[in-house]
Protein backbone atom coordinates (compact mmCIF):
# COMPACT_ATOMS: atom_id res chain seq x y z
CA UNK A 1 0.00 0.00 0.00
CA UNK A 2 2.78 2.42 0.89
CA UNK A 3 4.24 2.97 -2.54
CA UNK A 4 5.91 5.98 -4.08
CA UNK A 5 2.71 7.82 -4.96
CA UNK A 6 1.60 7.53 -1.34
CA UNK A 7 4.81 9.18 -0.14
CA UNK A 8 4.72 11.74 -2.91
CA UNK A 9 1.20 12.78 -1.96
CA UNK A 10 2.02 12.84 1.75
CA UNK A 11 5.16 14.95 1.29
CA UNK A 12 3.23 17.33 -0.95
CA UNK A 13 0.47 17.85 1.60
CA UNK A 14 2.85 18.24 4.53
CA UNK A 15 5.07 20.80 2.80
CA UNK A 16 2.00 22.67 1.61
CA UNK A 17 0.77 22.81 5.20
CA UNK A 18 4.18 24.07 6.33
CA UNK A 19 3.98 26.74 3.70
CA UNK A 20 0.53 27.89 4.81
CA UNK A 21 1.44 27.80 8.48
CA UNK A 22 4.55 29.85 7.94
CA UNK A 23 2.79 32.70 6.20
CA UNK A 24 -0.56 32.77 7.99
CA UNK A 25 -1.17 36.23 9.32
CA UNK A 26 1.98 37.84 7.96
CA UNK A 27 1.80 40.98 5.85
CA UNK A 28 4.59 40.32 3.41
CA UNK A 29 4.03 36.55 3.44
CA UNK A 30 6.08 34.67 0.95
CA UNK A 31 8.15 37.75 0.29
CA UNK A 32 10.01 37.26 3.60
CA UNK A 33 11.74 34.17 2.34
CA UNK A 34 13.39 36.20 -0.41
CA UNK A 35 13.80 39.40 1.50
CA UNK A 36 16.10 37.68 3.98
CA UNK A 37 18.88 36.67 1.55
CA UNK A 38 18.76 40.06 -0.17
CA UNK A 39 18.98 42.02 3.07
CA UNK A 40 21.91 39.81 4.02
CA UNK A 41 23.45 40.55 0.62
CA UNK A 42 23.03 44.26 1.12
CA UNK A 43 24.66 44.29 4.54
CA UNK A 44 27.57 42.05 3.65
CA UNK A 45 28.12 43.94 0.40
CA UNK A 46 28.28 47.24 2.26
CA UNK A 47 30.75 45.92 4.82
CA UNK A 48 33.01 43.89 2.60
CA UNK A 49 32.98 45.95 -0.56
CA UNK A 50 32.51 49.54 0.54
CA UNK A 51 34.24 49.46 3.92
CA UNK A 52 36.78 46.66 3.59
CA UNK A 53 37.40 46.68 -0.18
CA UNK A 54 37.25 43.00 -1.00
CA UNK A 55 38.81 43.57 -4.42
CA UNK A 56 36.75 40.77 -5.96
CA UNK A 57 35.26 41.47 -9.37
CA UNK A 58 31.47 41.43 -9.55
CA UNK A 59 31.41 41.04 -5.81
CA UNK A 60 27.61 41.30 -5.62
CA UNK A 61 27.16 38.26 -7.87
CA UNK A 62 29.97 36.40 -6.11
CA UNK A 63 28.36 37.12 -2.76
CA UNK A 64 24.80 36.35 -3.82
CA UNK A 65 25.67 32.87 -5.05
CA UNK A 66 27.43 32.12 -1.77
CA UNK A 67 24.50 33.45 0.27
CA UNK A 68 21.96 31.51 -1.79
CA UNK A 69 23.72 28.19 -1.22
CA UNK A 70 24.47 28.97 2.41
CA UNK A 71 20.91 29.99 3.20
CA UNK A 72 19.53 26.77 1.82
CA UNK A 73 21.94 24.83 4.01
CA UNK A 74 21.36 26.92 7.15
CA UNK A 75 17.57 27.29 6.80
CA UNK A 76 17.07 23.70 5.66
CA UNK A 77 18.95 22.16 8.58
CA UNK A 78 17.45 24.55 11.12
CA UNK A 79 13.92 23.96 9.87
CA UNK A 80 14.23 20.19 9.92
CA UNK A 81 15.72 20.40 13.39
CA UNK A 82 12.55 22.11 14.56
CA UNK A 83 10.15 20.13 12.38
CA UNK A 84 10.10 16.96 14.46
CA UNK A 85 9.45 18.72 17.74
CA UNK A 86 6.79 20.96 16.22
CA UNK A 87 4.99 17.96 14.68
CA UNK A 88 5.25 16.02 17.89
CA UNK A 89 1.51 15.61 18.31
CA UNK A 90 1.08 14.19 14.82
CA UNK A 91 4.03 11.84 15.08
CA UNK A 92 2.89 10.47 18.41
CA UNK A 93 -0.66 9.82 17.30
CA UNK A 94 -0.51 8.73 13.70
CA UNK A 95 1.68 6.14 12.09
CA UNK A 96 3.75 8.67 10.17
CA UNK A 97 7.39 8.19 9.36
CA UNK A 98 9.69 10.86 10.88
CA UNK A 99 11.70 10.62 7.63
CA UNK A 100 8.74 12.04 5.75
CA UNK A 101 8.48 14.98 8.16
CA UNK A 102 12.13 15.93 7.63
CA UNK A 103 11.96 15.51 3.86
CA UNK A 104 8.82 17.60 3.51
CA UNK A 105 10.41 20.37 5.58
CA UNK A 106 13.47 20.42 3.37
CA UNK A 107 11.32 20.56 0.27
CA UNK A 108 9.81 23.75 1.62
CA UNK A 109 13.31 25.30 1.94
CA UNK A 110 14.20 23.89 -1.47
CA UNK A 111 11.55 25.96 -3.28
CA UNK A 112 12.81 29.13 -1.60
CA UNK A 113 16.30 28.18 -2.76
CA UNK A 114 15.19 27.61 -6.36
CA UNK A 115 13.39 30.95 -6.53
CA UNK A 116 16.40 32.77 -5.03
CA UNK A 117 18.53 31.02 -7.63
CA UNK A 118 16.26 32.25 -10.42
CA UNK A 119 16.57 35.80 -9.10
CA UNK A 120 20.33 35.26 -8.99
CA UNK A 121 20.39 34.40 -12.68
CA UNK A 122 18.22 37.39 -13.58
CA UNK A 123 20.73 39.68 -11.81
CA UNK A 124 23.59 37.72 -13.35
CA UNK A 125 22.45 38.58 -16.86
CA UNK A 126 21.36 42.05 -15.86
CA UNK A 127 24.93 42.85 -14.87
CA UNK A 128 26.12 41.67 -18.25
CA UNK A 129 27.81 38.43 -17.27
CA UNK A 130 27.59 35.38 -19.44
CA UNK A 131 27.47 31.66 -18.84
CA UNK A 132 29.71 28.99 -20.25
CA UNK A 133 28.99 25.34 -20.84
CA UNK A 134 30.19 24.51 -17.31
CA UNK A 135 26.83 25.73 -15.95
CA UNK A 136 25.52 22.31 -16.93
CA UNK A 137 27.08 21.05 -13.70
CA UNK A 138 24.58 23.09 -11.69
CA UNK A 139 22.05 20.24 -11.32
CA UNK A 140 24.86 18.06 -9.94
CA UNK A 141 25.65 20.68 -7.31
CA UNK A 142 21.98 21.03 -6.42
CA UNK A 143 21.58 17.27 -5.95
CA UNK A 144 24.74 17.15 -3.81
CA UNK A 145 23.53 20.10 -1.76
CA UNK A 146 20.14 18.47 -1.14
CA UNK A 147 21.83 15.23 -0.09
CA UNK A 148 24.13 17.17 2.23
CA UNK A 149 21.20 18.99 3.84
CA UNK A 150 19.21 15.77 4.22
CA UNK A 151 22.19 13.95 5.73
CA UNK A 152 23.02 16.77 8.13
CA UNK A 153 19.37 17.08 9.16
CA UNK A 154 19.12 13.36 9.83
CA UNK A 155 22.20 13.66 12.02
CA UNK A 156 21.16 16.69 14.05
CA UNK A 157 17.39 16.15 14.33
CA UNK A 158 17.77 13.24 16.82
CA UNK A 159 20.08 15.43 18.91
CA UNK A 160 17.41 18.09 19.09
CA UNK A 161 14.79 15.49 19.99
CA UNK A 162 16.99 14.37 22.86
CA UNK A 163 18.22 17.77 24.07
CA UNK A 164 15.95 20.78 24.06
CA UNK A 165 18.89 23.19 24.00
CA UNK A 166 20.54 21.69 20.95
CA UNK A 167 18.78 24.36 18.92
CA UNK A 168 21.11 27.00 20.42
CA UNK A 169 24.19 24.84 19.96
CA UNK A 170 23.27 24.46 16.32
CA UNK A 171 22.75 28.23 15.95
CA UNK A 172 26.25 28.89 17.27
CA UNK A 173 27.67 26.15 15.08
CA UNK A 174 26.00 27.63 12.00
CA UNK A 175 27.41 31.04 12.89
CA UNK A 176 30.88 29.55 13.10
CA UNK A 177 30.45 27.61 9.89
CA UNK A 178 29.27 30.74 8.11
CA UNK A 179 32.66 32.36 8.67
CA UNK A 180 34.51 29.11 8.03
CA UNK A 181 32.94 28.96 4.59
CA UNK A 182 34.04 31.23 1.73
CA UNK A 183 30.80 33.17 1.45
CA UNK A 184 32.05 36.74 1.83
CA UNK A 185 35.68 36.06 0.89
CA UNK A 186 37.69 34.00 -1.60
CA UNK A 187 38.81 30.64 -0.27
CA UNK A 188 42.33 31.47 -1.49
CA UNK A 189 42.50 33.98 1.38
CA UNK A 190 42.79 31.08 3.84
CA UNK A 191 46.42 30.46 4.96
CA UNK A 192 47.95 27.31 3.47
CA UNK A 193 48.49 25.58 6.78
CA UNK A 194 44.72 25.48 7.40
CA UNK A 195 43.66 24.64 3.88
CA UNK A 196 43.50 20.85 4.35
CA UNK A 197 41.00 21.09 7.18
CA UNK A 198 39.28 24.03 5.57
CA UNK A 199 38.57 22.10 2.41
CA UNK A 200 36.95 19.23 4.30
CA UNK A 201 33.88 21.41 4.76
CA UNK A 202 31.43 20.20 2.09
CA UNK A 203 29.60 23.54 1.97
CA UNK A 204 32.91 25.23 1.10
CA UNK A 205 33.55 22.72 -1.65
CA UNK A 206 30.12 23.21 -3.16
CA UNK A 207 30.28 27.00 -3.05
CA UNK A 208 33.76 27.12 -4.59
CA UNK A 209 32.84 24.68 -7.35
CA UNK A 210 29.53 26.37 -8.06
CA UNK A 211 31.24 29.75 -8.36
CA UNK A 212 33.90 28.35 -10.66
CA UNK A 213 31.46 26.75 -13.00
CA UNK A 214 28.78 29.47 -13.01
CA UNK A 215 30.62 32.76 -12.58
CA UNK A 216 34.12 31.97 -13.84
CA UNK A 217 33.11 29.45 -16.42
CA UNK A 218 35.47 26.56 -15.83
CA UNK A 219 34.83 22.96 -14.91
CA UNK A 220 36.18 21.84 -11.51
CA UNK A 221 38.68 18.97 -11.40
CA UNK A 222 37.00 15.60 -11.56
CA UNK A 223 39.08 14.36 -8.62
CA UNK A 224 37.91 17.25 -6.41
CA UNK A 225 34.30 16.69 -7.45
CA UNK A 226 34.64 13.03 -6.54
CA UNK A 227 36.03 13.91 -3.11
CA UNK A 228 33.07 16.25 -2.57
CA UNK A 229 30.67 13.47 -3.56
CA UNK A 230 32.34 11.00 -1.21
CA UNK A 231 32.21 13.43 1.74
CA UNK A 232 28.55 14.25 1.11
CA UNK A 233 27.49 10.67 0.54
CA UNK A 234 29.20 9.60 3.78
CA UNK A 235 27.36 12.28 5.72
CA UNK A 236 24.11 11.26 4.04
CA UNK A 237 24.52 7.55 4.75
CA UNK A 238 25.66 8.04 8.35
CA UNK A 239 22.75 10.44 8.88
CA UNK A 240 20.31 7.96 7.43
CA UNK A 241 21.55 5.17 9.68
CA UNK A 242 21.56 7.33 12.81
CA UNK A 243 18.06 8.63 12.08
CA UNK A 244 16.72 5.16 11.33
CA UNK A 245 18.16 3.83 14.57
CA UNK A 246 17.06 6.58 16.94
CA UNK A 247 14.19 8.62 15.49
CA UNK A 248 11.27 6.31 16.37
CA UNK A 249 12.47 5.83 19.89
CA UNK A 250 13.05 9.52 20.42
CA UNK A 251 9.60 10.44 19.08
CA UNK A 252 8.12 8.39 21.92
CA UNK A 253 10.10 10.38 24.45
CA UNK A 254 9.42 13.86 23.07
Amino acid at each position, binding site marked *: *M*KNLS*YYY*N*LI*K*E*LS*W*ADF*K*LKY*YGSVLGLFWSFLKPFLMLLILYMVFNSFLKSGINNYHIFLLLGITIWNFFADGTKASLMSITSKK*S*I*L*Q*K*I*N*LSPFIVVISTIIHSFWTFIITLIIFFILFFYFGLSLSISVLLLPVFIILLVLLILGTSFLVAPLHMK*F*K*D*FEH*IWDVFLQMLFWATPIVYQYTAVPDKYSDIYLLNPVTRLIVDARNSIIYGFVPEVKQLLITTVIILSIFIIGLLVFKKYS*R*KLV*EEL
Partner: protein
Amino acid sequence: MIKINNLSKKYNIPHERKNTFFEMMLGYIKSQIDWEEFYALKDISFEIKKGEIIGLIGKNGSGKTTLLKIISGIIPPTEGKVEIDGKVAPFLSLGIGFHHELTAKENLYIYGAVLGLTRKEVNEKLSHILDFAGVKRFEDTKLKHYSSGMQARLAFSMMIQTDPEILIVDEIFAVGDKDFRPKCISVFQEYKEKNKTVLFSSHSLRTIKNFCDRVILLEDGKITKIGNPEDVVNYYANKK
Protein backbone atom coordinates in the same frame (compact mmCIF):
# COMPACT_ATOMS: atom_id res chain seq x y z
CA MET B 1 -6.43 -11.14 11.71
CA ILE B 2 -4.22 -9.85 14.48
CA LYS B 3 -1.85 -12.16 16.32
CA ILE B 4 0.13 -10.98 19.29
CA ASN B 5 2.88 -12.99 20.89
CA ASN B 6 4.56 -12.31 24.23
CA LEU B 7 4.37 -8.57 23.74
CA SER B 8 6.06 -6.30 26.29
CA LYS B 9 6.64 -2.60 26.41
CA LYS B 10 9.19 -1.26 28.83
CA TYR B 11 9.72 2.35 29.77
CA ASN B 12 12.49 3.81 31.84
CA ILE B 13 10.99 6.28 34.23
CA PRO B 14 13.54 8.83 35.25
CA HIS B 15 13.56 10.19 38.75
CA GLU B 16 14.83 13.44 37.43
CA ARG B 17 14.32 14.37 33.82
CA LYS B 18 17.38 15.56 31.91
CA ASN B 19 16.25 17.81 29.14
CA THR B 20 19.34 19.76 28.26
CA PHE B 21 22.74 18.85 27.01
CA PHE B 22 24.32 20.43 30.06
CA GLU B 23 22.21 18.39 32.48
CA MET B 24 23.14 15.22 30.65
CA MET B 25 26.86 15.99 30.79
CA LEU B 26 26.57 16.57 34.52
CA GLY B 27 24.75 13.26 34.81
CA TYR B 28 27.53 11.41 33.01
CA ILE B 29 30.16 12.96 35.21
CA LYS B 30 28.32 11.89 38.31
CA SER B 31 27.54 8.59 36.54
CA GLN B 32 24.43 8.03 38.56
CA ILE B 33 21.60 5.76 37.47
CA ASP B 34 18.44 7.62 38.21
CA TRP B 35 15.69 5.76 36.47
CA GLU B 36 13.73 2.62 37.10
CA GLU B 37 12.12 0.16 34.75
CA PHE B 38 8.40 0.17 34.25
CA TYR B 39 6.47 -2.32 32.16
CA ALA B 40 3.46 -0.66 30.52
CA LEU B 41 2.66 -4.03 28.97
CA LYS B 42 4.02 -7.34 30.17
CA ASP B 43 3.94 -10.57 28.22
CA ILE B 44 0.71 -10.05 26.31
CA SER B 45 -0.49 -12.74 23.93
CA PHE B 46 -3.82 -13.01 22.15
CA GLU B 47 -5.37 -13.50 18.79
CA ILE B 48 -8.18 -11.66 17.05
CA LYS B 49 -10.00 -13.31 14.20
CA LYS B 50 -11.29 -11.56 11.16
CA GLY B 51 -14.77 -10.08 11.62
CA GLU B 52 -14.62 -9.82 15.39
CA ILE B 53 -15.48 -6.77 17.45
CA ILE B 54 -13.14 -6.68 20.41
CA GLY B 55 -13.49 -4.41 23.41
CA LEU B 56 -10.59 -3.39 25.57
CA ILE B 57 -11.28 -2.44 29.17
CA GLY B 58 -9.20 -1.59 32.19
CA LYS B 59 -8.40 1.25 34.53
CA ASN B 60 -6.55 4.38 33.49
CA GLY B 61 -2.90 3.56 33.06
CA SER B 62 -3.48 -0.16 32.59
CA GLY B 63 -1.88 -0.08 29.12
CA LYS B 64 -4.89 0.14 26.79
CA THR B 65 -3.62 3.04 24.72
CA THR B 66 -0.08 1.67 24.65
CA LEU B 67 -1.39 -1.62 23.30
CA LEU B 68 -3.45 0.12 20.61
CA LYS B 69 -0.49 2.29 19.65
CA ILE B 70 1.75 -0.74 19.24
CA ILE B 71 -0.83 -2.54 17.12
CA SER B 72 -1.21 0.60 14.98
CA GLY B 73 2.54 0.71 14.45
CA ILE B 74 3.01 4.08 16.09
CA ILE B 75 5.42 2.80 18.71
CA PRO B 76 7.59 -0.31 18.58
CA PRO B 77 7.28 -3.02 21.24
CA THR B 78 10.26 -3.75 23.50
CA GLU B 79 9.81 -7.49 23.16
CA GLY B 80 7.46 -9.77 21.32
CA LYS B 81 5.79 -9.78 17.96
CA VAL B 82 2.68 -8.34 16.34
CA GLU B 83 1.41 -9.97 13.18
CA ILE B 84 -1.28 -8.16 11.26
CA ASP B 85 -3.05 -9.28 8.17
CA GLY B 86 -4.83 -6.37 6.47
CA LYS B 87 -4.83 -2.61 6.26
CA VAL B 88 -4.98 -0.89 9.63
CA ALA B 89 -6.45 2.54 10.13
CA PRO B 90 -5.50 3.78 13.54
CA PHE B 91 -7.48 6.38 15.28
CA LEU B 92 -6.21 7.46 18.61
CA SER B 93 -8.44 9.46 20.84
CA LEU B 94 -8.28 13.08 21.85
CA GLY B 95 -6.32 15.65 19.91
CA ILE B 96 -5.55 13.34 17.07
CA GLY B 97 -2.62 15.52 16.07
CA PHE B 98 -4.07 18.05 13.78
CA HIS B 99 -2.62 21.45 13.09
CA HIS B 100 -4.60 23.88 15.14
CA GLU B 101 -3.80 26.88 13.01
CA LEU B 102 -5.19 25.27 9.87
CA THR B 103 -8.85 24.92 8.95
CA ALA B 104 -10.77 21.67 9.21
CA LYS B 105 -10.63 21.15 5.46
CA GLU B 106 -6.88 21.73 5.29
CA ASN B 107 -6.37 19.32 8.15
CA LEU B 108 -8.44 16.71 6.37
CA TYR B 109 -6.10 16.95 3.38
CA ILE B 110 -3.10 16.20 5.60
CA TYR B 111 -4.82 13.46 7.55
CA GLY B 112 -6.12 12.04 4.28
CA ALA B 113 -2.58 11.99 2.88
CA VAL B 114 -1.39 10.09 5.95
CA LEU B 115 -4.16 7.57 5.38
CA GLY B 116 -3.34 7.36 1.68
CA LEU B 117 -5.97 9.57 0.07
CA THR B 118 -5.15 12.25 -2.49
CA ARG B 119 -6.57 15.76 -2.28
CA LYS B 120 -9.02 14.90 -5.05
CA GLU B 121 -10.32 11.85 -3.21
CA VAL B 122 -10.73 13.87 -0.02
CA ASN B 123 -12.65 16.54 -1.91
CA GLU B 124 -15.04 13.93 -3.30
CA LYS B 125 -15.77 12.65 0.18
CA LEU B 126 -15.61 16.00 1.92
CA SER B 127 -19.30 16.73 2.34
CA HIS B 128 -19.94 13.20 3.54
CA ILE B 129 -17.13 13.43 6.11
CA LEU B 130 -18.31 16.77 7.42
CA ASP B 131 -21.92 15.59 7.56
CA PHE B 132 -21.05 12.48 9.49
CA ALA B 133 -19.03 14.50 11.98
CA GLY B 134 -21.83 17.07 12.15
CA VAL B 135 -19.50 20.00 11.53
CA LYS B 136 -20.61 21.01 8.06
CA ARG B 137 -20.93 24.68 8.96
CA PHE B 138 -17.38 24.84 10.24
CA GLU B 139 -15.54 23.52 7.21
CA ASP B 140 -13.34 26.62 6.95
CA THR B 141 -12.99 27.26 10.65
CA LYS B 142 -9.55 26.92 12.15
CA LEU B 143 -9.24 23.81 14.20
CA LYS B 144 -8.25 25.70 17.31
CA HIS B 145 -11.85 26.88 17.54
CA TYR B 146 -13.16 23.30 17.51
CA SER B 147 -14.12 21.58 20.72
CA SER B 148 -12.29 18.36 21.52
CA GLY B 149 -15.44 16.38 20.78
CA MET B 150 -15.77 17.97 17.37
CA GLN B 151 -12.13 17.20 16.59
CA ALA B 152 -12.51 13.59 17.58
CA ARG B 153 -15.67 13.24 15.50
CA LEU B 154 -13.92 14.76 12.52
CA ALA B 155 -10.99 12.37 12.82
CA PHE B 156 -13.28 9.37 13.19
CA SER B 157 -15.34 10.39 10.15
CA MET B 158 -12.20 10.84 8.09
CA MET B 159 -10.73 7.54 9.13
CA ILE B 160 -13.69 5.40 8.17
CA GLN B 161 -13.53 6.89 4.66
CA THR B 162 -10.38 4.93 3.90
CA ASP B 163 -12.32 1.71 4.31
CA PRO B 164 -9.69 -0.13 6.35
CA GLU B 165 -9.85 -3.83 7.13
CA ILE B 166 -8.95 -3.26 10.74
CA LEU B 167 -10.37 -0.40 12.75
CA ILE B 168 -8.61 0.64 15.94
CA VAL B 169 -10.44 3.16 18.08
CA ASP B 170 -9.43 4.59 21.42
CA GLU B 171 -12.08 6.07 23.70
CA ILE B 172 -14.35 7.47 21.00
CA PHE B 173 -17.34 7.19 23.33
CA ALA B 174 -15.67 9.40 25.88
CA VAL B 175 -15.71 12.33 23.47
CA GLY B 176 -18.75 11.65 21.30
CA ASP B 177 -22.12 12.97 22.44
CA LYS B 178 -25.40 11.07 22.59
CA ASP B 179 -26.07 11.62 18.88
CA PHE B 180 -22.63 10.53 17.80
CA ARG B 181 -22.42 7.30 19.77
CA PRO B 182 -25.13 5.43 17.86
CA LYS B 183 -23.45 6.53 14.63
CA CYS B 184 -20.17 4.99 15.77
CA ILE B 185 -21.85 1.82 16.84
CA SER B 186 -23.65 1.47 13.53
CA VAL B 187 -20.30 1.91 11.80
CA PHE B 188 -18.84 -0.87 13.93
CA GLN B 189 -21.72 -3.16 13.09
CA GLU B 190 -21.44 -2.34 9.42
CA TYR B 191 -17.78 -3.32 9.63
CA LYS B 192 -18.67 -6.58 11.28
CA GLU B 193 -21.11 -7.38 8.50
CA LYS B 194 -18.33 -6.77 5.99
CA ASN B 195 -16.21 -9.27 7.92
CA LYS B 196 -13.81 -6.60 9.16
CA THR B 197 -12.14 -6.36 12.51
CA VAL B 198 -12.81 -3.68 15.10
CA LEU B 199 -10.69 -3.16 18.19
CA PHE B 200 -11.75 -0.42 20.57
CA SER B 201 -11.17 0.64 24.11
CA SER B 202 -13.81 2.19 26.30
CA HIS B 203 -14.86 2.91 29.83
CA SER B 204 -18.49 2.56 28.86
CA LEU B 205 -19.08 -0.96 30.13
CA ARG B 206 -22.64 -1.04 28.85
CA THR B 207 -21.52 -0.37 25.28
CA ILE B 208 -18.82 -2.98 25.59
CA LYS B 209 -21.28 -5.55 26.87
CA ASN B 210 -23.78 -4.86 24.13
CA PHE B 211 -21.62 -4.70 21.07
CA CYS B 212 -18.47 -6.77 21.51
CA ASP B 213 -17.87 -10.36 20.52
CA ARG B 214 -15.09 -10.69 23.02
CA VAL B 215 -13.58 -8.47 25.69
CA ILE B 216 -10.03 -8.13 26.93
CA LEU B 217 -9.40 -6.88 30.43
CA LEU B 218 -6.03 -5.27 31.05
CA GLU B 219 -4.71 -4.76 34.58
CA ASP B 220 -1.28 -3.25 35.20
CA GLY B 221 -0.10 -4.19 31.74
CA LYS B 222 -1.25 -7.80 31.92
CA ILE B 223 -4.29 -9.51 30.47
CA THR B 224 -6.21 -10.79 33.47
CA LYS B 225 -9.29 -11.94 31.62
CA ILE B 226 -10.33 -12.46 28.04
CA GLY B 227 -13.48 -13.88 26.58
CA ASN B 228 -17.26 -13.51 26.68
CA PRO B 229 -18.29 -9.83 27.24
CA GLU B 230 -20.80 -10.69 29.94
CA ASP B 231 -18.26 -12.60 32.06
CA VAL B 232 -15.35 -10.21 31.66
CA VAL B 233 -17.38 -7.07 32.26
CA ASN B 234 -19.07 -8.55 35.34
CA TYR B 235 -15.73 -9.73 36.67
CA TYR B 236 -14.27 -6.26 36.18
CA ALA B 237 -17.30 -4.48 37.62
CA ASN B 238 -17.41 -6.68 40.72
CA LYS B 239 -13.71 -6.37 41.32
CA LYS B 240 -14.02 -2.65 41.83
